């Protein structure tokens, strides 16, 4: 279940809103924007991430949890924070929490597959979607950030709370497993 990256993964640093690093990127900001503006700017990306990671059925609840956590911590945010990286870190934590809850519930009924609907009705390969749900949480999040949403590794690292190297390793390992799984289904 653990990641086999080329380098040992540093201790997992959970990016809670309270503990999130704020890195100066947009220095022109002098004050944090009204939360309504922040929500409007990031709602779509957060939703896309959640739908692709835990399925559309679970995305709504995780969306509310993500923005409630963000709202709670928002007044203490530094004005020069990278807001996108910050909210994606919170969304990643919520998606991983969801994954752990599902895993715990699934133990006694291991034969029953998780019934998360794919992020969309058509287009998505059901075999791939099943394989994505099999990935360890960190690899799943890294793959979605990097290969589904096309985010740069610096932001993937910030979102999943690892170094950039570990983010690359997780995305690489995850993609490798998915490729193997996809080949498997095509071969049948």
């Amino acid at each position, binding site marked *: 279940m653990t990641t086999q990256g080329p380098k040992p993964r540093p201790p997992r640093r959970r990016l809670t809103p309270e503990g999130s690093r704020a890195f100066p990127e947009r220095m022109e900001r002098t*004050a944090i924007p009204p939360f309504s503006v922040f929500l409007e700017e990031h709602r779509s990306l957060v939703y896309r991430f959640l739908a692709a990671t835990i399925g559309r059925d679970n995305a709504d609840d995780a969306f509310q949890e993500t923005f*409630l956590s963000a709202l709670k911590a928002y007044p203490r945010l530094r004005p020069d924070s990278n807001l996108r990286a910050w909210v994606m870190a919170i969304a990643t934590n919520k998606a991983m929490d969801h994954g752990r809850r599902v895993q715990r519930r699934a133990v006694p009924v291991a034969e029953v597959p998780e019934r998360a609907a794919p992020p969309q009705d058509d287009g998505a390969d059901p075999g791939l979607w099943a394989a994505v749900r099999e990935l360890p949480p960190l690899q799943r999040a890294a793959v979605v950030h990097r290969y589904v949403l096309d985010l740069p590794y610096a932001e993937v690292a910030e979102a999943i709370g690892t170094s950039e190297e570990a983010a690359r390793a997780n995305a690489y390992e995850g993609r490798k497993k998915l490729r193997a799984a996809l080949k498997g289904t095509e071969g049948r």
Partner: protein
Amino acid sequence: MTNIDAALRRLDQDAEDPSRQAAAAFADAARTAGLLDVAYATVDSPFGPLLLAATRRGLVRLAYPNEPVDDALQELAAEVSPRVLESPAALDDLRRQLDEYFDGGRSRFDTRIDWSLTKGFTTRVLRATARVPFGRVTTYREVAGKAGNDRAYRAAGNALGSNPIPIVVPCHRVLHSGGGLGGYTGGLDRKEFLLRLEGVLD
């Protein structure tokens, strides 16, 4: 580009509609969680859409359509709290009261006021102004006196000019001692319209 990358891209769905619905539902969740510090909404009026903003303490801001909404929200975020969300439900009652006022069916507003955006003499002038009833008028000198300094009528004029809650805090009911209408930040035609609505002007 291998199969896997294309297949992964297809997991990305267009989330415009579901995320808009989720964002609209979020204001209620925030309110229930006690995390909504500033709720805002718009209400139609004869002047165009008015922006209303309220805290738990009361109405904190009313902006005419010529004021950019973004600027008003930014000011609220900086001066009151950045926990600002659009929540028509939180302002339902006040929106109804304003509708009734513009329809000529309401002569006073039942709402508490949050004076967070003003201080000192300005707040005292506006508090005095808030007590001037519908259909009556007063003078700059009089509200200056009620605020503690009847010679400061020019400062009182400035205070009224910076009224963050026009209409509900009726600065349009304050006129020159000589009988002139005086000024109005929202434009003198608006002052005349409101005084006509209240039966002060023909």
